[in-house]
Structure formats: C-alpha cells, structure tokens
C-alpha cells in the first residue's frame, strides 16, 4: 500500500507555491526549478489541484498560480485526494464492487475501514500552514546550527 509519486509531488509543489507566492503569481517553471520536479509532471498535478480549487490561475504573459484558499484552510487530505482520488485502502469502501460477498458481513472490509479512519484522521487534521511552519522551523534550525559553527 503506497502513496503514488503524484501524491508526494503534489504536497511538495503546493508547499513550494505557497511559500513563494507573497502577493505574486508563481509559474510552473519556478516550482520546477526549486523542487526539481519536471514541468510536464507538474502541469498534470497543478491541473488536478486547480480542478479542486486548491490553486487558482491567471493566464497571459504574467500569468501563473496562487493558492485558492488560505494555507490554514487547506489540509493534506484535500491535496492528496485531488491527485490520488479517495485515500481508501480498498475499493469497496467507496463504491459498490461485485466481489460476491455481502459487504455488511465482511469482516475484512470492517478492518480496512478502520485503517482508512487512521489515515483520514492524520490527513484531515494536518494543514498546509502546519507544513509551512514546520519547514520554516527546520530551515531556521539549520541556519542557527551553521551560525554556531561559524
């Protein structure tokens, strides 16, 4: 059970954009040069994020992207679900499947649902703002450590 590269990159891309869009629009090229994610791949991710209103875009020569909501109002599950679909570990939790077993009597389905709850609890309760704060803290610690050595 793995999260896809798309999910991993989407979080990085949105963080990068949020941290560099103080009043201005950010282009895919900018994000690509900082995150080293290819422009082509970013375009697909950004397209999916735009559809879910996590990002907004402006076209034209000075066009680019900005967040569609405040960082404190965007949580990790919004971002991951925009590119990964639901985060359910098995299909039968979110749609009708014809596995031949009565879903109400399927004990493993209940077990997987419990697992899904754990994943949702974390992704629903972690915001983009918290990620940004953590990243800034990490950078600050690195700088402090460097200054100490100098």
């Amino acid at each position, binding site marked *: *059970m793995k999260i896809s590269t798309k*999910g991993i990159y989407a979080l990085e891309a949105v963080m990068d954009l949020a941290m560099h869009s103080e009043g201005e629009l950010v282009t895919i090229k900018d994000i690509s040069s900082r*995150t080293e994610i290819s422009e082509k791949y970013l375009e697909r991710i950004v397209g999916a994020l735009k559809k879910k209103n996590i990002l907004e875009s402006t076209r034209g020569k000075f066009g680019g992207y900005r967040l569609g909501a405040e960082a404190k109002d965007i949580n*990790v599950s919004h971002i991951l679900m925009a590119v990964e679909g639901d985060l359910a570990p098995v299909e039968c939790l979110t749609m009708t499947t014809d596995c*031949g077993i009565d879903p109400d*009597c399927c004990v493993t389905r209940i077990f997987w649902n419990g697992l899904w709850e*754990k994943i949702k609890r*974390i992704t629903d309760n972690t915001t983009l703002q918290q990620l940004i704060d953590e990243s800034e803290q990490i950078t600050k610690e690195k700088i402090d450590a460097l200054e100490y050595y100098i």
Partner: protein
Amino acid sequence: MKVSTKGRYGLRALVDLAYHCVDGHVSLVQIAERQKISLNYLEQVFSTLRKAGIVNSVKGAQGGYVLAIEPKDITVGEILRVLEGEFNIVDDLDQNQSANQTAIRRLVWEPINSEVRRYIYSTRLNDLVREHRMLNELSDENMYYI
C-alpha cells in the same frame, strides 16, 4: 493508494480458514466457493502462506490446509507483511531532503506509517475471526426469523 489483491484476498481467505478449521482441515475449493476467489489464485496465496509458516498443508485426496499457528498468536500485520511486504505508505526516503520534504515526512508520512503499523500489529487474527462469527451468525439468526 490501495492494498494489493494478494493482501486483500489472502487476509479474507485466512479468516475463512481460521473460522472453519476448528473442525479439521479445510480444502481450498471450499474457501474459493465461500469467498468467491479463484482456486488458482488461492493456490498461489496459500503457497506463500505455507512458506512463511502460517498454514500447513494436509496431503491426500481430502487434502487441504490448517493454520500452523493459533489465531491469537498472529497479528494481521504479520500476515500482511508476508502477503504485501512491509506496510509503509512511502518507502524510506533518502536523508538528503529539503526542508519542505522533511516537514512532509515528519507531519504526514511518518505519523501515517506509525498509526497504520500500530493498528495492523495490534489486531490479531482471532479478533477478526470473532467478529466474523458475530456478523455471520447474527445474520443467520435473522434469516431464521424471516
């Protein structure tokens, strides 16, 4: 982000085996019928489970499988590790990460990995068997009243 077919079917088949093998061994044909899983696929899954020492095969015309361990002595996590490999949402990321990548790892991937691990290694096969019994015998009872 999905559990593999092997993990899903394997766990379901093992619950079935554990539930039914109190009366002796169970043939894969019976499990295949009850769980609507192809026999071919079950044979592969049980070969993996046997190599890992979770089930034993009983040879002969009436052959089949029995659990090699008491259901209370094995966790779902141990079963899934055999069927799926280690249950991590992301593999070990390299340590040379940017501040953003480190933040994501600390606040998202690591908490998910540890919550998932805690959950699957604290659920035992007999917990699922007990729940399976409750669900199915309850519905049998309902049938009886109808």
